[in-house]
């Protein structure tokens, strides 16, 4: 499925903003992303499997509150580096 990534993660994907990854849940999708782009998961998900404070993940424009969120093959996942500070 399509995954749209924010610019702070660009160096992991050779500056591609849209990438493909698979998974039946956000957790599986993030694991697949990490296989394809090593290191990317830990920058957005902490060691307790929580989404980091300044990251938000949307599935079809609805915000996910955790990585257990189920996914369908047709879903679109958007990872956002939330605006914070200045």
């Amino acid at each position, binding site marked *: 499925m399509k995954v749209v990534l924010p610019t702070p993660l660009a160096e992991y994907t050779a500056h591609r903003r849209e990438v493909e990854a698979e998974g039946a849940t956000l957790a599986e999708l993030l694991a697949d992303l990490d296989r394809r782009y090593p290191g990317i998961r830990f920058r*957005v998900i902490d060691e307790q499997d929580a989404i980091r404070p300044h990251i938000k993940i949307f599935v079809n424009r609805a915000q996910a509150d955790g990585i257990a969120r189920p996914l369908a093959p047709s879903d679109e996942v958007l990872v956002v580096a939330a605006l914070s500070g200045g």
Partner: protein
Amino acid sequence: MAQLLVLVGTRKGLFILGSDGTRRSWSIDGPHFLGQVVNHAVLDPRDQRTLLAAVRAGHLGPTVYRSEDAGKSWAEAKAPPAFRKAAEGERGETVSHVFWLTPGHTSQPSRWYACTSPPGLFVSDDAGRTWSGVAGFNENPERIKWCGGLQDAPPDGATLHSLHVDPFDAKHLYIGISVGGVFESRDAGASWAPLNAGVAADFLPDPDAPYGQDPHCLRVHPAVRDVVYHQNHCGIYRLDRGANRWQRIGANMPKDIGDIGFPLALHPRDPKTLWVFPMDGGTVWPRMPIGGRPAVYGSRDAGASWKRLDGGLPADQAWFTVKRQAMTHDALDPLGLYFGTTCGEIWASFDEGAHWQCLRAHLPHVYSVEVASVA
């Protein structure tokens, strides 16, 4: 001739100043990791090649990068420092930022240590590629108590900010924790004991509390066994082991200057020579040079007497802070001293503090300064 590098970690990236052994002219390389906080960058003196940087972007989690070519290329650690995943129903912790990196003992050439906020201790035995928690500290049932409960975080978070390996004993480690105190382990981190006797803590009800003091910068002498100094929230201290009680050598500072500050640097060849950068610790703790007149103070007699060393520094109206990791030295003779400011300046003295010159201005807020020599 060996090349001298000054590694400048800032709020917005890493900068590397370079010179030859004459120290007459300086190049600048960077920024590396533009826009990201670099709390610390250290080049391994054992191989003069492996460079590690503690990096955290505003939005992203903390990590460690490695370079084996003095920063020309970088690779991220495969497993950065991270606390253990908590069991169901248990409160888990997350690393906010990696604050301190230090190479291990010379007998353990691939070992590094990383210290974090919240206070956590991590070790790598593959030169920084993968990290794991030091269970003797991170899982220690006393740890949260030692660290003041973690809710009393200073501005950048409660921090395990210093680790030093005894150069004469690889298993003997010293650590400094903000609002926690100094602790030591004699079994490579398996167990820890507080080491704070004699250290003031005017913010605690118990003047003789075993822990809870607030070391700002801890230094262990690299060449003379069992000589330890630290700059504390409440004074400057020296400890000659054998003894377990710190002596407040800052009591010998001029009374109108006091002995509050953040960094402290030791002369690597003379255990009686050290330098500090006093700051205003009055009222609301401005953390600025006293009266806006910055000065390094040096002692040649283990803190029995101090000399003001401000030649070349701004005479007045200079309002910056020198952070705890932002003052250091090289290994040349005469010794070079370096400090970085929150205003983005790098100052250096090549005559052991008598005269200072500004090597570079207009950098971001400086968090750390380390010097390295590369072949």
